[in-house]
């Protein structure tokens, strides 16, 4: 695809997550940005998906490792030999 060619809603929809994840090339990113500036529907969609990803980030972590697991691993590390040193 021509780098300067505008893209349509469908293409934006398919690239939206890559765009939000910061995984697009500079040229592709610019194309999506240009479309979002012009298209209210896609702009709203991008806003919604951004909120969704933030929501996931905030709610999907749950609990960390239990304290006894950390102790168990530390005990193992202390009882074992040192790992091979690099030269």
């Amino acid at each position, binding site marked *: 695809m021509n780098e300067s060619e505008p893209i349509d809603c469908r293409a934006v*929809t*398919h690239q939206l*997550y*890559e765009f939000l*994840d910061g*995984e697009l090339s500079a040229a592709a990113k610019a194309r999506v940005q240009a479309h979002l500036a012009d298209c209210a529907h896609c702009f*709203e*969609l991008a806003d*919604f*998906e951004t*909120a*969704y*990803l933030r*929501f*996931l*980030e905030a*709610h*999907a*972590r*749950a*609990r*960390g*490792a*239990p304290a006894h*697991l*950390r102790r*168990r*691993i*530390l005990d*193992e*590390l*202390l009882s*074992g030999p*040192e*790992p*091979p*040193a*690099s030269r």
Partner: protein
Amino acid sequence: MPPSVPPDREGFEREALVHLDAVFRTALRLSGNPTEAEDLAQETMLKAFRSWHQYRAGTNAKAWLLTILRNTFVNQYRREKRRPATVDVTDIEPFTVFRDVQDADPERTFFDRLVDGDVIRAIDRLPEEFREVLVLSDVEGLTYAEIAAAVGTPVGTVKSRLFRARQILQRDLYDYAVEAGYITRRGAS
């Protein structure tokens, strides 16, 4: 900065063991069983310690650990052989709930009503190949390239699986919110 971190116990504790929470969380999402997740996390950490000299200083230690974890899970813990899913992102009609939400819940209150447990349970319902990429990306913050290395697939596959995973999860959470009465689906009442 020194050219490489000396592969000592102290360095390992400082750079790797600090990621134990991430390793345990991911183990739990992969195995679905807290006891197994502890064993899996412990084994991952001990393997990582033994190969600490292979870790390249300055790279993402968490991504390195999660790669070891994922390999350990696949080789030793996973009971069922999974069928390879081939999904091409261009074949997927997006099924974002955006339109439904615009109609039924423009303030997006359902995001506020859902709690951690709802989200975790919905993640656990995802098919494994979607669950693992979603967890590595959206819970642990790995890049597409890091996920591709951890899962052993091309970046394009990560991209399409992640797209699909996020959309399935979104639809599932939305349906759950409707069922729980957090949203009234338009025309439903």
